[in-house]
């Protein structure tokens, strides 16, 4: 098998030589020198690459900035959204809720464009109508707290939902404790949205 392969190759080689000889016998074709272009091409590629790198870097920075801004936004929103809970039939600020409110005060100072709707809520136990009044007082209690730290009154509106918007629909102490609360709805995000 191997010897047969060698034989074939030898034969093919003979034919190839013959063809070359015939070719030389005709008008010799001038093979043109290839253009020396690589130098220029190389420069352009590098610039594009740099531009691309820079664009990529810019994108990366922008993405990072967006991520940072998103994280900051999430931080601010989650602090604003932190609920404030109340004792039964009370509208005074519980001592364990002060830290929640202090965090709000600092982000509201940091972002003076943010405006809020403070929503007072109650558990289901009191009368439907009295709970509307109680919810209003709960919203007002938090508004007053924020104003007492020098925040501008125009940034806050209040509303009471009484017992009409429970967080937990159940009739037990845990549910009631969750439902006696102020919610916070951001009406204007200020520069959290304007991007500066």
């Amino acid at each position, binding site marked *: 098998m191997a010897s047969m392969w060698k034989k074939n190759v030898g034969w093919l080689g003979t034919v190839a030589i013959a063809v070359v000889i015939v070719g030389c016998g005709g008008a010799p074709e001038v093979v043109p020198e290839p253009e020396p272009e690589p130098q220029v091409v190389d420069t352009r590629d590098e610039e594009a690459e740099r531009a691309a790198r820079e664009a990529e870097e810019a994108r990366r920075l922008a993405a990072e900035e967006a991520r940072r801004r998103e994280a900051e936004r999430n931080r601010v929103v989650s602090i604003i959204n932190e609920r404030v809970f109340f004792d039964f039939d009370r509208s005074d600020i519980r001592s364990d809720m002060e830290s929640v409110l202090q965090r709000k005060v600092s982000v509201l100072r940091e972002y003076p464009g943010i405006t809020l709707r403070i929503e007072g809520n109650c558990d289901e136990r*009191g009368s439907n109508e009295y709970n509307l009044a109680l919810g209003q007082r709960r919203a007002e209690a938090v508004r007053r707290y924020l104003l007492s730290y020098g925040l501008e009154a125009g940034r806050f509106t209040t509303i009471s939902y009484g017992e009409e918007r429970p967080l937990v629909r159940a009739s037990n102490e845990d549910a009631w404790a969750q439902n006696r609360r102020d919610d916070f709805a951001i009406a204007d995000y200020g520069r959290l949205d304007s991007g500066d």
Partner: protein
Amino acid sequence: MRTMVAKAVVLLAVALTFTTGRAVAQQPERDSIPTDVRVGILYQPSFRPGIVMPPISTGDELQDLADSARAIILRDLDYGDRFQVMRVGEDVPLEGPVNYGLWDQLGAVWLLVAAVEGSPASPILRLSLHDVVFKLLQDVQAFELPPVGHPDSRLALHRAADQVVAWATGSTGIAATKIAYVAEGTGGSEIYVVDSDGYGARRLSSDNTIALSPAWAPSGDRVAYMSYKGGDPAIYELSLNPGHSSLLVDLPGLDLTPAYSPDGRTLAFGSTVDGRTEIFTYDLTRRCCAERTTFARYSNSLSPTFAPDGKRIAFNSDRLGQLHIFVKDVPDGSPELVTPYIYDRSVHNAGPDWSPMGDRIAFHGWVQGTPQIFTVAPNGRGLRQLTQVGRNEDPSWAPDGRHVVFASSRDGSDGLWILDVVSGRIRRLVRGSDVRLPAWSGSLDSPSHFADESADSDVNNPQGAR
């Protein structure tokens, strides 16, 4: 002869098959009542005179109307709790002159004889009430009814039933009345209305948000209520036919718990002052001039309800650190405590409603953390607990000052319930765990308008003929 009649006539106390309420002998639970408050709770066993209404025979196309008229009137008389409705067997001789002796033997005190005449386009119901004991015709009247199948047919029959109550007892009937209430809606809650016999419940408001606290205008054609539909909660007014809602009054902050004065000229309601709630009055005739009438720094005043003379209101306030019912003159006058102050307890009395008779104020108060219905005189005397079972809230008086409707859980049978505060009889008006804040209308008697009733009114009718 006597035994034959005795067989022929079946007398049953509260025997109508459609009667849903049962006489409930409520047992007092002394241990559930604060020991330092004297609370009356027992219902008096009251005598209800027997009334009998033989079937109406017309023998023509008015027979269906006659049958339903009798069924509606008998049920009204039963629900009014002033009579013991007696059933008559089919073979009682009804022809000829009234046999007072026979009815007397059977124990009837009143005999109501009815006839239906005229045509389907303008039927007439003729009622004659006989005093069986004194053997005389007490009164007689022909009632023009709307055409057969008209949406106001039932109301016209309810009015006839109320007339019978007035003839026999001189008292106001409650059949021709409606009850407005709150039930779940798509965006929270909506205002609904139902007839006094539980028939024809329908939604009145279409706000798709929170709607609460319906209150009837004395004219009975409008209901004030509070709604969040404008964003800022305000007082609106719904007309019944058609159900159209318009803004009544919107002060800054939360406006809540409207109540009309008995002359319909003033609206009292709660509104926000410095973050708390105070009561205001508003001039409905001039559509202006909201004036504050309560002045309690640091506390809430709300849920006003007018005395029948319109000169005083009862209202709810937490000014003593507990939630109590107060009474004061309007516009000026200092509040007087009506419900008992109980030192060192979580007292929660709310939802006052002044009886149209003026003598009692109904409200709900907590008994061991569960709301129960009470009544008390406007001077704070004679506190009386009316309910024991389940949660019972937000009572509203019928125009007879004898029945109250309230929201109750009744240990699982949630709904709106009607209680006769004299006998303790109770019946369910509307079923559902989401129904609340009922308001009972006054007597609805404007019989002149059935000719121009709009054809697209969505009031149901018993015959389904429209």
